[in-house]
């Protein structure tokens, strides 16, 4: 399945844009996606930390990703 990953803050700089599209095997997990992203964008590993969000919620590594899920990379937040 094809998925789109939104990027914010420094992740936008790392991706070179506000989103990237990836081809992901069906039933992939958040962990699988993270592994793929770090291979394509090794600078993600230099961040202090980051999370993935699925459908506006912080996701756990074992969560399954479905087609049409809204996925986003969430680098360390600094609002307020």
């Amino acid at each position, binding site marked *: 399945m094809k998925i789109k990953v939104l990027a914010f803050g420094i992740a936008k700089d790392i991706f070179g844009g506000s989103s990237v599209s990836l081809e992901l095997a069906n039933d992939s997990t958040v962990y699988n996606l993270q592994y793929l992203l770090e291979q394509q964008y090794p600078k993600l590993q230099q*961040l*202090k930390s980051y999370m993935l969000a699925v459908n506006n919620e912080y996701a756990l590594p074992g969560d399954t990703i479905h087609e049409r899920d809204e996925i*986003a990379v969430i680098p*360390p937040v600094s*609002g*307020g």
Partner: protein
Amino acid sequence: MTSSHQKTFSLSTQIQISPTPLNIQACIDWIISPESGGIDVFIGTVRNATKGKPVIRLEFEAYEPMAIAEMEKIIKQAAVQWPIQKALIHHRTGVLEIGEVPVIIAVSAAHRAAAFDACRYIIDTLKQTVPIWKKEIFEDGEIWVAAHP
């Protein structure tokens, strides 16, 4: 035998993420009510320096739908911990100059202790969980705050 405690409360909330300057008076007008005895308001402001280094301006970016969802969660968490009546979060995005206001949190309660505790909880937790990012712009460059170790 079990004892059951029921908790009923009515909570009004107002959450807003906006690129236009925040209106403090409008926040106060919304939060004041005849039922409340104490209101605590936190106002974040853009400081002219960070760790001693002069800051020119800030830029805020939000992942809006998720930020709003997280703000709603934080207010609900506050409301189960303290008896509050109303809670408001306004957060600004875009370019902010020194002295401008990126965030206003306001909480009303019958008694002031709950308003203070909840307001502080909301801003502390917002800074840890709400997907909003701040870029500091200096004379000689810019950084996304907290991005790197």
